[in-house]
């Protein structure tokens, strides 16, 4: 293959992977929009017998597994919507290596396997978050808009997330997430299994970065899409913008201040 044809192929492939990631993100966001509008419609109808109603209501009943399952799906889709853009540089770099191998007739691994490993981590987080949400609903600590009703919970989460921004664990995870090159150079593994494990490991570093800020969804409403989008943008900025780590730490100060304010007003 000539060098020009090869470069054209690489460019085309980059566009395909990039478009697939964009499509995944857009589909997840559309689903969230649909879910959010369905919930507000149901809340207005005030008909407790409607299916799915319990998700939107501060239900004091015992949660069924089907309802918790619906919450897991909601969280899972939300994590895809929020994390895919931030994970894109790493995914594109991984796919760059394998598409080159494909073009040269060497054994290659589909990028989807790497992405799958990454998403497994966030799915597990979604299960934990959904269980936490069900628990908080049962304890009447979340409103029908899925926002914290207790200032102690809201303020506490803000302070905790803000402090976490300054911890060595956060710094270490963010440093790894910010440099796809060093992550792949240090942790490269061959084969499908290797790709899955690398996706899993990247997911873990990502989780280490973002679990606390994700928990802030409980503060202003899990289906408050403006809040969801703001957190997603903050995660993206922290990860890809030059000196994003510094911006993240400054955001931590703002979060602590907001949390302290809420706690002070409540007392």
């Amino acid at each position, binding site marked *: 293959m000539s060098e020009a044809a090869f470069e054209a192929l690489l460019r085309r492939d980059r566009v395909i992977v990039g478009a697939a990631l964009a499509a995944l993100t857009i589909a997840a966001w559309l689903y969230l929009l649909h879910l959010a509008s369905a919930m507000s419609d149901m809340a207005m109808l005030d008909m407790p017998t409607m299916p799915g109603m319990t998700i939107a209501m501060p239900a004091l009943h015992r949660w069924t597994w089907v309802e918790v399952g619906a919450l897991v799906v909601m969280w899972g889709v939300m994590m895809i919507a929020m994390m895919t853009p931030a994970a894109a540089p790493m995914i594109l770099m991984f796919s*760059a290596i394998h598409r080159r191998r494909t073009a040269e007739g060497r054994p290659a691994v589909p990028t989807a396997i790497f992405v799958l490993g990454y998403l497994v981590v966030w799915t597990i987080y979604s299960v934990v978050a959904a269980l936490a949400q069900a628990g908080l609903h049962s304890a009447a600590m979340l409103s029908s808009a899925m926002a914290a009703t207790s200032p102690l919970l809201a303020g506490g989460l803000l302070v905790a997330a803000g402090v976490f921004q300054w911890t060595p664990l956060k710094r270490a995870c963010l440093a790894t997430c910010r440099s796809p*090159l060093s992550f792949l150079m*240090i942790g490269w593994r061959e084969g499908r299994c290797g790709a899955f494990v690398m996706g899993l490991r990247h997911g873990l570093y990502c989780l280490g970065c973002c679990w606390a800020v994700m928990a802030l969804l409980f503060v202003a409403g899990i289906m408050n899409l403006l809040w969801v989008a703001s957190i997603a943008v903050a995660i993206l900025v922290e990860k890809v913008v030059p000196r994003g780590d510094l911006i993240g730490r400054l955001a931590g100060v703002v979060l602590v201040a907001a949390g302290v304010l809420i706690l002070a007003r409540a007392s």
Partner: protein
Amino acid sequence: MWPKAIHESPGKAAFIVDPATTDKQVEALSQIFTGQVGGMPWELLGPTFQVVGLLKKKITIEGSGRKSTFRIDGVGEGRGDALKNPVTGEDHIVNVDLPTGFIWKKGEAGQGSFRASAADLSVEFNKTNWIYYQYDWSNAA
């Protein structure tokens, strides 16, 4: 040289080889360094830069360990030294032992200065990080 983060590309590189290098050797080296034959780190780094020049110049390496010097005629030179005691100015010898290091295991740390310019590219660093080590990248799966 990479204008942004390395993974954001596009970088530029100029290769300099000894005048005695044959075309066949140059071709083999270029296949390694552009990642065409696989293997880390070049498989990963190769696609992030474009080769903008190839020069054949005399390369001289002198000294030993961290106090090595290398010079490329008409292109530039690099000069290594030990870290210095800030009070007395005496050599302060520091070695780094990285049993699980994936690029190198044992290194002689020091300070180095280098400058080079070729094919529109130019770099210059003074008293910067300088570690003398045996390159040991096994590429074991």
